[in-house]
């Protein structure tokens, strides 16, 4: 028996070794060289990535960033009709609709996501959301799976996240978990991001500009963490760009804590008004959240 079993085992191990790193190397980039460098080439596709909303009103920013990640993961090809990107399954808890509003399809289109690609699964509780997400992650034809539970819940623990990331690894479909009104907890995610809205670059006549986010890499399995970048999402190029300047000169922004036009966005973390260490410390993070809501 050992005569036949051992070579078979060796073969399967060799296959695993061949496949494992190859899959891990299957990455997608956010389109920003600094970010990709920190991530060691990009975000791995078959993995779980967590996106935390920092304050109460930042829910839309976190959701928007997750959509942008999903679009980066499954980009629309340049020549239409060559390959249609896979559908995106969006598992959402009912409570999110009540707290943060329901998904507005034209708004999805405004961010570059074709609403026809989206399949929404409404689950009554966090467990249902996880179950729908895990089920969807088994289907390798999808472009991405978004998992959006609400609040602190004991259902999302190390075991549950490990299960999700294994499922994502098997199918090669990125799993993006959007956490709203929750504090970071131990999980098996490959990366963890904290997102908050950033004042946009104003257009003529003081109109709000492109969606801008401050994204903080709280955790990174493949490298160092704790960096913050200020980015804006360009829907037409389906790409993140560095946010050019802090604000228009000559416009008064009394409540803004930062000095006008001081930080170059090319120097990540140079003058973070949000110290990266604060984000890893739950107590401090809580304080900042209150200040933010304040």
């Amino acid at each position, binding site marked *: 028996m050992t005569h036949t079993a051992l070579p078979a085992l060796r073969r399967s191990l060799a296959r695993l070794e061949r496949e494992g790193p190859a899959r891990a190397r299957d990455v997608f980039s956010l389109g920003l060289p600094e970010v990709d460098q920190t991530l060691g080439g990009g975000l791995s596709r078959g993995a779980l990535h967590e996106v935390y909303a920092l304050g109460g009103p930042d829910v839309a920013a976190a959701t928007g960033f997750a959509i942008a990640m999903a679009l980066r993961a499954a980009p629309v090809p340049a020549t239409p009709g060559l390959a249609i990107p896979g559908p995106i399954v969006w598992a959402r808890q009912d409570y999110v609709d009540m707290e943060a509003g329901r998904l*507005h*399809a034209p708004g999805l289109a405004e961010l570059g996501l074709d609403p026809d690609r989206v399949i929404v699964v409404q689950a009554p509780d966090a467990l249902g959301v996880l179950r*729908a997400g895990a089920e969807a992650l088994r289907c390798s034809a999808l472009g991405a799976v978004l998992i959006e539970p609400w609040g602190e819940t004991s259902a999302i623990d190390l075991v549950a996240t490990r299960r999700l990331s294994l499922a994502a690894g098997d199918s090669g479909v990125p799993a993006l978990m959007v956490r709203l009104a929750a504090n970071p907890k131990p999980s098996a995610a490959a990366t963890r991001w904290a997102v908050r809205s950033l004042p946009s670059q104003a*257009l003529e006549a003081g109109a709000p500009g492109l969606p801008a986010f401050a994204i903080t890499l709280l955790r990174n399995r493949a490298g160092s963490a704790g960096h913050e970048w200020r980015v804006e999402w360009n829907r037409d190029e389906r790409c993140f760009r560095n946010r050019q300047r802090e604000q228009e000169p000559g416009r008064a922004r009394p409540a803004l804590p930062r000095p006008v036009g001081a930080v170059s966005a090319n120097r990540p973390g140079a003058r973070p008004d949000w110290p990266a260490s604060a984000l890893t410390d739950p107590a401090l993070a809580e304080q900042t959240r209150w200040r933010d809501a304040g």
Partner: protein
Amino acid sequence: MHSQIPHLRNKQDGATQDEAPLVIVDKINGALRLMAVDARALALGLTPGLALADARARVPAIDVVALDAVADDACVERIADLCDRWTPLVALDPPHGLLLDISGCAHLFGGEESLLNDIGRRFAHGGLNLRMAIAGTPDAARALARFGRGGIVPPGGEARAVGPLPVAALGIASDIVHGLSRAGLKTIAALAERPTIPLAARFGDDLLARLRRVLGREDIRITPRRPPPACMAERHFAEPIARTSDIEATLTRLMMQIADLLHKRGEGGRYFEASFFRSDGQVTRIAVETGRPVRDPKVVLRLYREKLEALDDPLDPGFGFDLIRFTVPVAEPLDEAQVSLDGRINEESDVADLIDRLVARFGRDRVQRFIARDTHDPHRTAFAVPVTYESGKGTATTLNWPAPEPYEPPLRPLQLFDPPQPVETTAEAPDGPPRRFQWRRSWHEIALAEGPERIAPEWWRRESGTPTRDYYRVEDVNGRRFWLFRAGPYRNPPAKTLWYLHGLFA
């Protein structure tokens, strides 16, 4: 075949053990009349139709219960469910009657005689007395069960069997019954001897049609309450089964048979239904739906596993199931899938399988997709519909999503509140957004704003009583982007302008 349930009302209210006779009353033309009576009351001469006051005068000590028609109907429905075990074609025949089409079924139960015995025995367990008749046409069976003694009518013997019955057994209106009896025609036999043309002239064609059916000269099919399935497989158990593994094994075997049947027909099922008949008479039906025709047993059984796991009250076998039936009520043509070179069909069917599994677990309404609508009303412009919603009805699905202006920021919010949330504002300008607003107990200082974009309600929709709205895209100093609107009307502005938050931008 027709079963009439004479003492249904008495039984379902629970025949009391005390000695007082039980009567069920209902108000008819302002007077309380007996609708049904139990055997003791019948023995004392109380018959249905008697006024309650008269009944009380004759027998002072009676137990009076008001009629509950809804509960009666529910009970008959349950009995009809149970009758599914003998034939898939069961029709309701109100009041309190059931019609069963047993063509080709009787031999499965050892002939008509033993079928009648089986039915009678099963309901006698539940305390129901039935009056049953088997005849060549449903009308003859109904007449015999309701007005005769029931029993089995040999083929061609309908005319002789129903002959002595009163004309009311034809199921005709009471004024026609009255008219016939004034003409001296009291029985069906008397009516059948008359020439038909004067009868039709006097009482209408309907009477003659009914007469022909009762006499077995014309046959119409019953309209079953559940449409007959495209295919069906079932398994009876001499010894009821209760173990989950047995049930699963049975489902697997039945599904294999169904797959064979569907394969022969070149079809796939869109809707599958498993019926579990418990030995105590309860029937549980569990259905799964698929987005496209399917006949792969593995796929269907996987859906069933999902469904059974997600049930609120798990399948309770009680003392065991003695019949499990698998039916396919809806089937559609299914060609063998042709896998193209790049494997795209596989991918599409993968997604379809996933959707089916999600639907089975979470329910139809919880798995949704968006369809575009040609309207400016933000509430109506996008619509989340169940993912299994059939496209092609109406023009809504053929619309494309409006392409956003290149290099413009998003003009519509990512998330929309329904209904819009009222906000407190301060420092308003007459034609502009407020400087600050309070939402969910925190103040937002507005730094950037664009607007107004005026969106008027659609006047051709009567239900849209909302006034015109002026929308502003605003951003607060912390970079949160909101969609605010001021509610009109603008011709006669109200004393205080009301502001609402309608959505959040990313």
